[in-house]
């Protein structure tokens, strides 16, 4: 048999003789692979976005959320949950009185509203965080100051603007001391925050406006809080803290009206959901790869018929059945791997383009998987046409019209 390098050269020459057809044949694989790369990168981006969000809350934090978490209720952190939340400031106080190993207790609500100044207006998320909650999130001011517990106690109308929100309202001007309008009320800007959290999926934490918890409750007409963060002394005491909080809240609330989860727990659940999502997206993409493979087989079968005389000639001048088999097989593999390569490039460029709007992460395993699957498709769908070519009788093939 002739060396693989020579066969590879022959195969590529044959494919270049039909450039348009080769490219169109690769299209199925190109679309399939770029879909795999893109969809997996979105799934992975979502996962790392959420992980970052939770890590910004710091370690050893146990969250109390309204409703039954994980059992049909889903992740209850949307604005809607504010209206069904039975958690209150009174609960926060009772938990904080439990003492060691609880170090700190903070509470938050989130809602959306317009923030406007001098004709400019942004629709954004308003965070009502207690002072302790700010500490748990490690929030600090880049200029001015962050509001304090004292501001919270008297429900002062003050607001800190996110790093990217401030310039959108004030341009290059100094926002400190100015009054912005939120939900028809005036709030004095006392600080601009340092960068925190992450951006992506249409929610940029740096575009938040945050204010004392009680101020936000007044603004949105709420008595409840949306979530309570309880910081444990260390990792080992987390189970104890969870039990203490459950027992305390259980005195007043029913079992299905609140959930106590630690962040690693919560993250695990979310990641499970996201993994399933990523797999589902990957599965859909895999089907398009399969369709692409069938396309390659179809074209290779046509090509074998069309090149019957060529096969006859090659056999007459000394090609062995294996030489012919490998030539056509390698043609199919070059088509599918070439399609895979172009697909990886397009998928990665797409992910890079999308990263302006949402977080995307192109992973090595998705690239390797795509290449592996492409090569496999080339082999699986290339064998039948190649075997057919290698079995042609040279006399019949030379006479073929």
């Amino acid at each position, binding site marked *: 048999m002739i060396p693989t390098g020579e066969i590879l050269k022959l195969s590529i020459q044959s494919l270049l*003789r039909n450039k348009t057809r080769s490219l169109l044949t690769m299209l199925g694989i190109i679309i399939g692979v770029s879909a795999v790369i893109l969809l997996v990168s979105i799934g992975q981006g979502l996962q790392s976005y959420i992980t970052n969000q939770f890590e910004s809350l710091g370690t050893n934090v146990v969250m109390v959320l309204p409703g039954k978490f994980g059992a049909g209720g889903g992740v209850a952190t949307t604005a809607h949950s504010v209206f069904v939340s039975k958690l209150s400031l009174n609960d926060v106080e009772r938990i904080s009185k439990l003492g060691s190993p609880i170090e700190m207790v903070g509470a938050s609500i989130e809602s959306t509203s317009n923030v406007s100044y001098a004709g400019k207006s942004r629709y954004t998320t308003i965070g009502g965080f207690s002072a302790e909650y700010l500490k748990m999130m490690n929030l600090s001011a880049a200029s001015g100051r962050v509001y304090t517990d004292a501001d919270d106690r008297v429900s002062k109308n003050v607001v800190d603007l996110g790093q990217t929100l401030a310039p959108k309202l004030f341009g290059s001007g100094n926002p400190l001391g100015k009054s912005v309008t939120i939900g028809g009320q005036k709030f004095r800007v006392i600080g601009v925050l340092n960068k925190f959290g992450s951006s992506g999926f249409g929610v940029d934490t740096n575009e938040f406006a945050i204010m004392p918890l009680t101020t936000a409750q007044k603004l949105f007409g709420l008595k409840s809080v949306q979530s309570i963060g309880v910081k444990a002394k260390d990792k080992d005491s987390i189970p104890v803290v969870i039990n203490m909080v459950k027992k305390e809240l259980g005195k007043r609330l029913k079992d299905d009206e609140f959930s106590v989860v630690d962040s690693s727990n919560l993250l695990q659940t979310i990641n499970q959901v996201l993994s399933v999502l990523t797999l589902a997206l990957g599965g859909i993409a895999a089907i398009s790869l399969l369709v692409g493979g069938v396309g390659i087989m179809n074209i290779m079968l046509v090509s074998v018929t069309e090149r019957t005389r060529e096969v006859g000639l090659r056999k007459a001048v*000394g090609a062995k*059945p294996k030489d012919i088999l490998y030539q056509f097989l390698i043609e199919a593999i070059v088509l599918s791997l070439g399609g895979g390569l172009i697909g990886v490039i397009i998928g990665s460029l797409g992910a890079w383009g999308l990263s302006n709007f949402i977080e995307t992460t192109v992973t090595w395993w998705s690239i390797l998987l795509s290449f592996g699957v492409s090569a496999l498709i080339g082999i699986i769908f290339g064998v039948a046409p190649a075997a057919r070519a290698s079995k042609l009788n040279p*006399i019949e093939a030379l006479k073929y019209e």
Partner: protein
Amino acid sequence: MASLISLSKVTKTYRLDGGVEVQALRGIDLKIKEKEFVSIIGPSGSGKSTLMHIIGILDSPSTGLVELEGKNVGKLPEEKLAELRNKHIGFVFQAFNLLPRTSALDNVELPLIYSGVSATERIRRAEEALKIVGLAERMNHTPAQLSGGQQQRVAIARALITKPSLILADEPTGNLDSKAGDEIVSLLKELNAKGNTIVLVTHELEIAKKAKRIVQMKDGVIISDKKI
């Protein structure tokens, strides 16, 4: 002088799809020596194509003995036959059978790819072969850019390149006008004068007469075999 190729009592029977058996060759005895120029002539259906396939070891006989340079090639596996064809036989076909959109040079070097010759050596020998057939100026032309006669010259260069024991030309002038056809026959005569053994299969007596020996076939048997 020993025979280059020798057939004794060769028969070939085909079974058609309907189960009917057709005897294409009915006992052929034929010896071709080195440096001969033989033409095989006969009407269609006379079995000359089948004979050519057996001489070119593209096909095996049903019964009888076929020897190439003294070796029995009757019942060898396909791989071995491919190797022997590559080494000993140069084919020239009526329809040229060049690869489309491929330069003359790449077409000519094709047989050498299957004999494992290095790329640089292949190009050197392909250039040499194209010079012999008078196409030194058109090495990078594709078949579509060449006339019929020129295409057949490329095919002859391809047959020459392995320095085969035997050049087997099957109706090489069939697709050409008489002027180009004459040129091709002259080229074959020239190659024979240089020492190449040539077997020319044709149904035209005028063409067959250019050879040194004419083997006439009818109904699967040789009816005459004479030197000119």
